[in-house]
């Protein structure tokens, strides 16, 4: 009996406690730095697209919401001809970001993606591509890839060794 009255009294005292609610549109919650929100495609320091169209993100995606088509420019640099993410399917698991070998696809702490028309949730490449290097500033895949590309032959990139002369390896 006493415990019942004590319970009611303690509940009543909650009237004077601080509210836990965050009044969302006016106040924003502090998001963790690694929050997995909207997916973006980043660029390298030369503002070239980082994505090389390797399909690893599409393969890693558990809900198959990523579709893309790789193509090459005249210098042999690969890039996606189209890159489409269906955010009505996306579960924001971040596997695409983990799978990406060039740090191109990244999840940023933005979750305000509400739409009135479902079709608008399908983001095309121009919606995804941002003019920023995202979480890895300074990283330029083609500079460290060991690949002959426009203006740079094998072994000229950062941390690259000259290609081994296979004839010198003969016993």
């Amino acid at each position: 009996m006493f415990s019942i009255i004590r319970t009611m009294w303690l509940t009543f005292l909650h009237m004077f406690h601080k509210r836990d609610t965050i009044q969302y549109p006016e106040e924003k919650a502090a998001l963790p730095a690694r929050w997995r929100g909207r997916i973006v495609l980043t660029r390298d320091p030369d503002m070239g697209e980082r994505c090389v169209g390797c399909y690893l993100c599409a393969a890693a995606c558990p809900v198959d919401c990523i579709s893309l088509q790789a193509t090459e420019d005249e210098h042999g640099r690969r890039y996606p001809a189209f890159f489409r993410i269906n955010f009505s399917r996306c579960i924001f698991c971040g596997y695409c970001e983990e799978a990406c070998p060039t740090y191109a696809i990244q999840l940023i702490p933005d979750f305000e993606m509400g739409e009135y028309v479902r079709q608008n949730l399908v983001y095309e490449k121009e919606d995804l591509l941002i003019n920023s290097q995202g979480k890895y500033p300074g990283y330029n895949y083609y500079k460290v890839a060991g690949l002959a590309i426009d203006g740079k032959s094998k072994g000229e990139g950062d941390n690259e060794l000259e290609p081994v002369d296979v004839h010198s390896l003969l016993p």
Partner: protein
Amino acid sequence: MSPAIIVVCVLGGLLLVAPGLIWVERRLLAVWQDRYGPNRAGPLGLLVVLADTLKLFFKEDWIPPFADKKVFVMAPAIVVITVLMSFVIVPFSPGFIVVDLNIGLLFFLAMSSMGAYSIILGGWASNNKYSLLGAMRGAAQMISYEVFMGLSLMGVVLITGSFSLHDIVEAQRNMWFVVPQFLGFVIFLIAGIAETHRLPFDIPEAESELIAGFHSEYSGMKFGMFFVGEYIGIMLISCMVTCLFFGGWLGPAFLPPIVWFILKMFAFIALFILLRASLPRPRYDQLMEFGWKILLPLSLLNVMVTAAIILWNENPQ
């Protein structure tokens, strides 16, 4: 005032305030749970009442094909009718009473007990396991609290010597009955919570175990009727507690009597909501045991002691 005007005032007031209690309940619950509650639609979120009502009207009013249609439709009406009928005898202020029956209290007990039929019939007609379980619990709960509910009021009737609520309120000019009849007040309050099927005694409803108990199959305005019935029931029990134990409209003269009545009524409505916010639900056999083994003997003892004291005062040896 002519009775017709009073009837319209009481009926209109009740049907307006009952949905408003949705807002009161949600806000108060939120306050006691460190939240804000509905505060977006309109000033202080008051328009949530309108939104809720409109939503209920637009919901599909579906009768399951396996239900007993006539009884299914009738059940929600019964709860509203019986509760509204009980309000006939509530004196809001001197003269502002629909009809001052000389058996007012008995009429209230009879009408509020009839409300149990809506639960039993609704649960039965739904033809659904959980609904039937809820209905069965409703019946079990009803037979356990109804007895001591009546008995707990007998002390008040003994002191007043009348079943008329007007006389009962007038008899409290010197002292509210909550002082001499404190036990009766506590027992009546517990019985009243059980009567309205509010938490912690919402055993026939029991959202967490029976989905929604007797009204799981109801939708649209039929569900709304159960809801309205429940909220008017809360108001009814609050009014009765106010009339029987807290001096009804009596109060210092700087406020008109009707305001005192409404203030006291809302204090008890808030208490009902505080109970909901703080207490867990007992098992229904626990409620029956509590009713039969503790509250019934206590209320009998209350009646006996009150009667003995009154007899002693009338002819002291």
